């Protein structure tokens, strides 16, 4: 369903800040795959997700979604197929707008914005029901401004918004990294639940190797702008952190040093 074929991206080409962030990334996802993405700081994980989301055009390569070439489609049009949650809890929601207004905006992802009501009464009822599954009490605070929520609540809400209108592909960029361990675990649980219940295809970046192993049916590791490991099926199920470290050393030719412990 998602084919990423030899994509390249260099930031600030021709300047002193030139940085080749993606150097020929290749992989594909099948319908219903839940793939975790790991790699050290600066490996190109966010850049790869941003390339799929269309934040900027890539330099070379092809991105196919459902066999449709979306490489040249701008970000706001690609949004019709994509649900996204970001590392920074501030990014995914409009803080000066109400919780229900944010949901209503997300429910219209991929549709043209008409002069019809921005939110209807039936919608408000529906959101009140649906929000109960998050178990955060947000269903009682539909008219609160999102800016009043904690980071964890905002991430859960963003995740909920990203899947309110079923996306073809869900992109999660370290969406639990800014949360305390307990909240992170809770948000991850909700993530699993939403992905399973809606049979979503998803890419989830994480720095936590255990999480990467425990969640999803696929795993890729990135290093210096390339995919250096691609694990699936039975192999993924039997994977341990130690295996991953050995495989990293074998594939990258580098030792797994302590400053890569961010992976652990």
């Amino acid at each position, binding site marked *: 369903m998602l084919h990423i074929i030899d994509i390249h991206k260099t930031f600030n080409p021709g300047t002193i800040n030139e940085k080749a962030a993606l150097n020929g990334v290749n992989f594909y996802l099948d319908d219903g795959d839940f793939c975790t993405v790991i790699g050290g700081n600066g490996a190109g994980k966010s850049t790869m997700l941003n390339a799929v*989301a269309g934040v900027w055009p890539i330099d070379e390569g092809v991105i196919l979604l459902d066999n449709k070439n979306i490489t040249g489609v701008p970000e706001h049009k690609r949004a019709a197929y*994509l649900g996204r949650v970001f590392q920074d809890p501030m990014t995914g929601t409009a803080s000066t707008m109400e919780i229900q207004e944010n949901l209503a905006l997300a429910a219209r992802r991929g549709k043209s914005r008409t002069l019809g009501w921005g939110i209807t009464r039936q919608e408000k009822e529906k959101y009140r029901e649906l929000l109960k599954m998050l178990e955060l009490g947000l269903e009682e605070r539909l008219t609160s401004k999102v800016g009043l929520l904690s980071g964890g609540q905002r991430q859960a809400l963003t995740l909920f918004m990203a899947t309110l209108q079923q996306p073809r592909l869900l992109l999660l960029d370290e969406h639990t990294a800014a949360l305390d361990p307990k909240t992170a675990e809770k948000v991850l649980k909700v993530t699993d639940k939403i992905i399973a219940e809606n049979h979503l295809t998803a890419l989830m970046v994480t720095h936590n190797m255990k999480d990467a192993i425990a969640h999803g049916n696929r795993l890729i590791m990135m290093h210096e702008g390339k995919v250096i490991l691609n694990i699936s099926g039975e192999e993924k199920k039997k994977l341990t952190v130690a295996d991953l470290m050995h495989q990293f050393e074998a594939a990258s030719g580098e030792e797994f040093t302590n400053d890569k412990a961010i992976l652990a």
Partner: protein
Amino acid sequence: MSYFLTLNPLNLINALPGCIAQGLIWGIMALGVYVTFRLLNFADLTVDGSFATGGAVTVMLTLAGFPVPVALLIAVIAGLASGLITGLLHTSLGIPPILAGILTQIALYSVNLHIMDMSANKAISVQKYQLLISLMHVPGAILTGGIFAAFLIIILYWYFGTEQGSSIRATGCNPAMSKANGININFTKVLALSISNGIVCLAGGLMAQYQGFADINMGRGSIVIGLAAVIIGEVFGDALFRKHMNFALRMVFIVLGGVIYYIVVGIVLWLKLNSNDLKLFTALIVAIFLAVPYLQGKRRNSFLRTAKASEAALKAMNDREVN
């Protein structure tokens, strides 16, 4: 002492209705400023030019024999177009917001001169034309101004509750989130700038009728007056209604902000302060009203305060140890 004897309270009372009428027109203008400044989060300086465009188009078309409402409608369309230009300068050519607005504003100065047949001032007589609003009849002017403001508030209240209006508000609040939710933020920015300048041109058209002429300089400093009205209105509205402040009330208070501003101007003129100092005075008011919410927050939340409090707490602890 003799200065105070020259101040006649009756003069102030006589001037007040005129201040209210003018204040309502500036309040309408301020609703336009509110759309960009607060909802879109874009400080748009186009308005200094487009306010005069509104006056020029209204007066020239009326002189040419168009019915006044039609002239006013075309002025609004001219306003939509000027906002469109600023929007395209920003979104298509990558020019920063303030600069894009200034460029259009400067260009409009020449355009306005052309509209007014290259003269800096065009008079229009209320005796000869069926003007909607005029200082010759102040009570009627207040009524008309009030009706225009009320209609505008109702329309804006509806519009910013629609899917399209919500997408403008989202763009102003969080562009990244908006794009991720499929909103074309270049489109919403251009749209909001157009709407804003359309409203500003409407106000300019009303002002030209009210004062009986269009002037090439009538828009100079209008962005500051608009901001003054927005900020004064918000400070008063928030103080009076606190948590119960909603979008419609906010707009009502912004229009009232324009009225309050003009009453204060009336008082200043009554005190026989030099009217050439009016701009200085306006800048002062805006600075004060911008500073008030900031300073209030700071007083509640200052290092100086915690420094004093912590010193006192420390002293109390030491005293206890000594005993």
